């Protein structure tokens, strides 16, 4: 994107405010990748808006040199809905977390997803309440010991991607703070998708929940435990040793070292809602060789009309049927009488 004849650089998107996350926090990486990818996205900075709720991740807008609003706890999707519906020209990004987006603001999140405005919702999932200093969150695993669960959490955790698919989201993806290239790629795809893009980003809170995502980020473990989804490609992981196939609707892990042919594997199709649902269920908290790998990438993407388009269509239709509103006629109404 050109600005005064010069292309944007990542610095153009960084504000003059000091970043105040804890040193080592995964939020830094996400901020950096966002600022890095933005010049490639072709968004004019004047049209770029970040809306957040409350929590560590929600400080994000302050650090972006763009328009932004740090709103109240959980409500960012609703604020963004009003903003985008009022001005569809804007590129609107919602920054939320697992507490903000899935607990206090869960209702707004699912309704934003079903309405499908052309906005991007980035859910920084660190499986903990960071800003309030370490209580279990709606994505913390069962039995988790935290300040508010000294005997272990008894709350069954949300599966953020199944939840989004259940709400008929039109773009559902997962990525992770520790994989900058993948993160940028997913952000780019989220931007390109017309409709609500929902991206869960695994984000390490090194102060209150360090290592929560180690099985999928640690170099030694990640290949065995995760699978990178690529459109049109067979589902292969563990350095090409393992693959996935479907027996009807039943997923199976197959050992490619034992002469299993690639042509029999499940080929990723992000347009297939049923398969996306199956992938989103790969959600065991304790990984292992017999467990399904955690999928990263775009699970699902669907073209559906956007809410703001439908809203504008109704305005156009009203204009066509009723004519341009005339204030005097409105105030006068249908029946009047004169008093002399």
């Amino acid at each position, binding site marked *: 994107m050109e600005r005064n004849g010069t292309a944007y650089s990542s610095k153009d998107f960084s*504000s003059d*405010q000091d970043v105040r996350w804890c040193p080592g926090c995964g939020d830094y990486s996400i901020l950096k990748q966002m600022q890095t990818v933005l010049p490639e996205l072709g968004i004019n*900075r*004047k*049209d*770029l*808006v*970040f*809306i957040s709720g*409350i929590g560590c991740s929600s400080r994000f807008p*302050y650090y*972006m*040199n*763009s*328009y*932004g*609003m*740090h*709103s*109240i*706890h959980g*409500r960012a999707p*609703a*604020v*963004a*809905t*009003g*903003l*985008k*519906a*009022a*001005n569809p*020209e*804007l590129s609107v990004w919602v920054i939320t977390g697992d507490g903000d987006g899935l607990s206090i603001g869960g*209702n*707004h999140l699912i*309704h934003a997803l079903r309405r499908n405005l052309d906005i991007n919702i980035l859910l920084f999932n660190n499986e903990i309440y960071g800003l309030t200093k370490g209580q279990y969150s709606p994505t913390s695993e069962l039995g988790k010991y935290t300040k508010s669960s000294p005997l272990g959490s008894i709350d069954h955790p949300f599966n953020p991607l199944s939840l989004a698919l259940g709400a008929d989201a039109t773009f559902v993806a997962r990525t992770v703070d520790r994989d900058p290239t993948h993160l940028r790629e997913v952000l780019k795809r989220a931007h390109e998708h017309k409709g609500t893009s929902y991206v869960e980003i695994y984000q390490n809170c090194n102060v209150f929940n360090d290592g929560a995502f180690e099985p999928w980020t640690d170099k030694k473990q990640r290949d065995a435990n995760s699978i990178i989804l690529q459109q049109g490609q067979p589902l292969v992981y563990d350095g090409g040793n393992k693959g996935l196939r479907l027996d009807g609707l039943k997923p199976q892990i197959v050992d490619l070292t034992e002469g299993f042919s690639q042509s029999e594997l499940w080929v990723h199709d992000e347009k297939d809602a049923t398969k996306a649902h199956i992938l989103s269920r790969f959600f065991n908290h304790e990984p292992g060789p017999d467990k399904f790998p955690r999928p990263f990438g775009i699970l699902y993407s669907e073209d559906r009309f956007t809410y703001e388009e439908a*809203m504008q269509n*109704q*305005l156009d*239709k*009203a*204009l066509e*049927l*009723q*004519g*341009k*509103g005339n*204030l*005097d006629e*409105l*105030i*006068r*109404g249908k*029946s*009047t*009488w*004169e*008093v*002399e």
Partner: protein
Amino acid sequence: MTMTTREEKRSKVTIHFAGDSGDGIQLAGSQFTLTTALQGNDLSTFPDFPAEIRAPIGTVAGVSGFQINFGSEEINTPGSNPDVLVAMNAAAFKKNIRNLKKGGIIIANEAGFDKRNLRLAHMDESVNPLDEVRASDYQLYRVDITKLNREALQDLELGMKERDRSRNMFALGFVYWLFHRNLDPTLQFLTHKFQTDPIVLEANIRALKKGYHYGETIEAVKRYSIESAKLKPGTYRNIVGNQALAMGLIAASQKAGLNLFYAGYPITPASDILHFLSRHKNFNVKTFQAEDEIAAITAAIGASFGGSMGVTATSGPGMALKGEALGLAVMLELPLVIVNVQRGGPSTGLPTKTEQADLLQAVYGRNGESPIPVIAARSPSDCFWVAFEASRMAVEYMTPVIVLSDGYIANGAEPWRFPKSDDLGKIQAPYFSGKEEYLPYKRNDKLVRSWVLPGQEGLEHRIGGLEKEKETGNVSYDPENHEEMVKIRAERIARIADDYPALERIQGPPKGRVLVLGWGSTFGSIKVAVRNAISEGLEVSQLHLRHVFPLPNDLGDIISGYDQVLIPELNNGQLSKLIRQEYDASVTAFNKIQGLPFRADEVLEKIRELHGA
């Protein structure tokens, strides 16, 4: 066999229509209102219906009522004791008969008084109460509406249920005959309403006409004529409060050159505003039915941030949910209008009844020091002006503004000498002039910051709910800065009062014994009470507040001119508290908390009491 029917002129009549919630009472009432308005009478109405959509049939709890007071003289209230009671069944009779004026007229649907209906109304099955009505007490018309109506529609291809559904039109027709009303407006209305269903249309038209002609065939004693009212010359229309409010919002958005973004969650008695606006998208109105009350206000905030006029409306419980977002709007300093059509509280309270008990909630109900202007509508047509004024304040002062209406005026109707759009003032948003460096929280001499919309090049900035540094708007935890910002936010709202027009007394001397001070929907009852008190020779004046927060600067001076201030309110004394706290005045609170508006005579009695009469 037409009998000679006597004619009588009346200057004022109050009619109460009552029946089962499924009887179409509200429809009959609103049609009588429209017809009466078009005949040039002044009027005031009071619909009173149960919270349940279809409460158990035939029971007292299920009675739906509609009262209209109309006349050739000035009308300010829906009237206290009706002159006419239309009772479609025993329950309706039982609930309302004690209010009927002695000598009044009862129109009773005979079929609604059978044993079953008496049982459902918990009345003695062996005695038909209509047999007990003494001719010396009331003029009773026993009409077998159900039977007559069925006969009239005999040849139509309609089930019994559907036939009975037009009974309300039969009753209405008879009342039209009694009071010399013109059938045309209702015929037109029916033709439009049932345009796709010719048989039902025919049934309703026939029922209406049958009812009308019924008057001619019976030995009706008297017909009444009510001359048109000598209202101020001009063109009038009939208007319902919520409708006026919605129109005021549209008018303001047009005058401000802004798109209106209205977000609401269904709630009684505010939903009609959403319904009305969703039918007027050709005014660049975007309506958004949100997933909850919080989403409604936060979406409106988002829309305002994006450069629209963001509005949300609700009632008390929804207002409670919106509290945190109201605080955000205070911090953001963006235009936002929040309408509270009050109902009986606390909690779910009395959803379909009226009350003024959310005043302190509006003024104080948020965390932190978060002042928001509050203005209140006094009558159905005033809802237009208040909505317009609230929008103007919101846009010009960059602030959330709370509008207080209530169930009584939201659903009530009155004639309105409506304005021309040219006579409405222009609304000027404080857009950034671009002449100096832009700082998001830099203020003009009225302490108003300028409005910059996303999409404006080079002015990118961030706002939020955290405390901000004085001019830059950057997040600041500095102790002195916080104190200063709290003071600035208080001062900028306080200064809005400098721009109010001077308070005008409604009636009575500028100094004296008693000032009756009201706010909101009690206006009409107080007006009649004070007028009557003055004509009794009592020394009393009336002042009515539109701006309840911040209070007008000249209020203190006016109050100090009277020995006593009487404050009638439909709550437990909320304005009284505010006034006592602000001024050194001898305040008498007069409170009614029954989910019903004041009757003028209740206020009059209180005025007399204060005069030691």
